[in-house]
């Protein structure tokens, strides 16, 4: 039996049953006063000029780190993406072996979360501004490369073959046949990565790599909620500005939305694009200089101490089954929460405009807060546990998925929903069958991709909580146990690669069914 597509959409929300059952046992309510204080402080953020100036500087650093890291990853990702495209090698050399090889190699940097890159680079490069930028640029380059090569290889090759048959040389034929259709996809994805980069840069700050994240973490740790909210509101303004701007450019330049996977898009307004790209490069250099990023530091590697004596016995005696099991369970719980809650919330809020607004706003806050901060807040009232960590991770991703779902719904034709409403069905049912059924499969497919991202992100809440590989990683890092760290990173990378493969298959199945 195949459930109807819209019902499929609500399936992940079943995870709420065990979570809600477990919640009373986890509640301790000890820090309820603190939560109240925190909530009240939202309306009375600190307006102290000294605090604001420090926060503004922090925002500047965070935005700068995001921008430079993103810019580098875009350029490097494009080059690497071309280098790992099968079509390209087949046209130039005759077979696609080098493409497959480069693809495999790129899997490793991609499978390691930017936070781990940051912490590892900090150890070999020292306290350098370049660390955060590189930490963003390395995994992002590999991610962009994957998307670029996937897009490129999925393009129809008829034009290319025609040009080649007509005697055009390889490079020229490639550029002419594949360049223009590739552009909208790359631009759309690039805009999305910039939003991700801002979130990553904030997160890196939470773990001490500078910028606003550091201020947020310190304010929360010393329970200075008024200062914390000044920082959060500032970040909110920057995030919304960025999202609006990226959305504006996406519409203006006719780029496809992320949920509409099959929509053919043709890039428009070439002059504007060239102008924007032309300003981007000097801008990146300028921001990089302002941050004090010095490429020369990459040459000054500090040796890691104590590498000569690996305690492999101790590495083997780590509780691997619990660590891996905890990580996987955390991912599944968080993913189901995030994917399932978004449509459910929209349905519940459907009849009332104010409720819809509230849901949207809660999503903005959810994706604004780095998961470790959410976790610290949750720990005020919940016991540390796997579910607590899953809530923190799930809520953050709910904010991201919810926004996508809403964008996707807005793009649907309103005809079916209006017909249902006119026929007398309630607002919830009309939304459910009229609009949601149309996006169900692509939303779930995106959810599959996102759960793969969440697997990588478990490291973030693991570090702050006490669950899975992430918590062991922090412990190993503060013990300077490089052998354990190396083993943990390797296991993480393996898990991510397997997860990526699984989510890819799931995604393909979901999309094929549509």
């Amino acid at each position, binding site marked *: 039996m195949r459930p109807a597509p819209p019902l499929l959409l609500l399936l992940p929300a079943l995870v709420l049953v065990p979570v809600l059952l477990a919640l009373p046992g986890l509640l301790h309510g000890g820090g309820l006063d603190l939560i109240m204080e925190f909530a009240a402080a939202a309306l009375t953020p600190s307006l102290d000029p000294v605090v604001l100036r420090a926060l503004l500087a922090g925002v500047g650093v965070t935005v700068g780190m995001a921008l430079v890291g993103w810019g580098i990853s875009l350029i490097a990702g494009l080059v690497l993406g071309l280098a790992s495209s099968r079509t390209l090698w087949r046209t130039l050399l005759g077979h696609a072996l080098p493409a497959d090889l480069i693809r495999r190699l790129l899997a490793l940097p991609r499978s390691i979360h930017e936070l781990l890159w940051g912490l590892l680079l900090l150890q070999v490069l020292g306290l350098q*501004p370049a660390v955060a930028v590189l930490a963003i640029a390395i995994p992002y380059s590999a991610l962009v490369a994957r998307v670029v090569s996937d897009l490129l290889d999925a393009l129809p090759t008829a034009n290319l073959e025609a040009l080649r048959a007509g005697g055009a040389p390889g490079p020229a034929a490639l550029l002419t046949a594949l360049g223009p259709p590739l552009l909208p996809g790359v631009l759309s994805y690039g805009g999305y990565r910039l939003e991700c980069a801002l979130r990553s840069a904030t997160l890196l700050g939470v773990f001490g790599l500078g910028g606003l994240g550091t201020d947020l973490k310190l304010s929360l740790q010393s329970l200075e909620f008024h200062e914390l909210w000044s920082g959060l509101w500032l970040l909110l303004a920057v995030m919304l500005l960025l999202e609006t701007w990226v959305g504006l450019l996406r519409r203006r330049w006719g780029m496809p939305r992320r949920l509409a996977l099959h929509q053919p898009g043709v890039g428009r307004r070439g002059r504007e694009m060239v102008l924007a790209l032309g300003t981007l490069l000097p801008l990146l250099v300028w921001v990089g200089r302002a941050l004090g990023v010095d490429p020369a530091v990459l040459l000054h590697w500090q040796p890691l101490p104590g590498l000569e004596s690996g305690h492999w016995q101790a590495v083997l005696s780590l509780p691997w089954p619990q660590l891996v099991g905890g990580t996987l369970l955390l991912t599944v719980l968080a993913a189901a929460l995030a994917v399932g809650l978004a449509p459910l919330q929209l349905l519940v809020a459907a009849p009332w405009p104010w409720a819809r607004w509230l849901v949207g706003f809660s999503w903005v806050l959810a994706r604004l807060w780095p998961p470790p901060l959410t976790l610290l807040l949750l720990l005020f009232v919940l016991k540390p546990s796997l579910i607590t960590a899953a809530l923190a991770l799930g809520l953050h991703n709910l904010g991201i998925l919810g926004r996508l779902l809403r964008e996707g719904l807005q793009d649907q034709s309103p005809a079916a929903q209006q017909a249902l409403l006119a026929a007398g069905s309630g607002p919830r049912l009309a939304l459910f069958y009229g609009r949601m059924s149309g996006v169900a499969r692509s939303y779930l497919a995106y959810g599959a991709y996102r759960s793969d991202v969440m697997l990588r992100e478990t490291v973030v809440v693991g570090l702050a909580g006490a669950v899975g590989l992430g918590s062991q990683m922090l412990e190993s890092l503060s013990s300077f146990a490089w052998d354990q760290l190396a083993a943990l990173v390797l296991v993480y990378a393996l898990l991510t690669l397997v997860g990526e493969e699984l989510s890819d298959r799931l995604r393909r199945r979901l999309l094929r069914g549509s």
Partner: protein
Amino acid sequence: MTIRRRTAAVLAGLSLALSPLLVPVLSGGGGALMPRAAAEPAKATRVLRIGAIPDQKPEKLNRLYPLVAAELSRQLGVTVKYVPVVDYTAAVSAFRTGDLDLVWFGGLTGVQARLQKPGSRVLAQRDIDVAFHSIFIASTASGIQPFRDQKDLARLKGKRFTFGSESSTSGRLMPQYFLSQAGVKLSDFAGGAPGFSGSHDATIALVQSGTYDAGVVNEQVWRTSLHDGKAKRSKVVAIWKSPGYQDYHWIAQGDLDQRFGKGFTVKLQQAIVSWRPGDPQQKQILALFGAQQFTPAEAAAYAKIEQVGRQIGKIR
């Protein structure tokens, strides 16, 4: 689309693209990712960069260490800069990578730093660091009563418990050692694991609020908090005081004599040890450190810390 609208759109796009340029301007050039001092290469400058493990609230550290920097600069005639770091591990790493020249370490982080950077020198400790104590605290709401016998630490089983930083000597290492002597494993706490609040101030705040039933902090911060009224006796009480052990100390890089001139390390040590409450500036520093004076310290004094660190797996 009309030309006017197109021009407007181009301008809007441009101004958005350029808007990040404004940020460093707005922030008055303070927008460096890391403190400037940390970004400067070590050899080209004659700046003594000092640091500390962030064991207390940033406001307090930011009040104390610039004072220390100014005083050392006056005594030694070199530029001294305070470089803040965000966690204990980062302080050790920054010392190893040569980004910090003189660091106020805890017992455990000091041993970690010396093992990672052979040749570095233990300079001085406070009078109170010879026999430093941890204080176990509990919220009054938890109903945990103070006790004398170490064995009674077993009462903490099943409670929500928090340490300070993972690498804290008085907020984690020695308490964990005392707990294990009393038969309490980390998995015995509620939720299957203890929390790590990050600093002593945070531990007090979290226990006082009831977020955790109990926690452990260093004695000096506890006393200061009681004195300041930050810790309210009606909400949080001390339940057990640990036996004494060696804790905090100043550690310097081994190459300071080459970089700052012969005998510099000795001069630096003498400067720190010479601080007395008679001098107004030095009095303020000593008060913030919670000490009467500093005394010369030996690496050998930390053998016990190293042994416990190895036992618990924080030193390898």
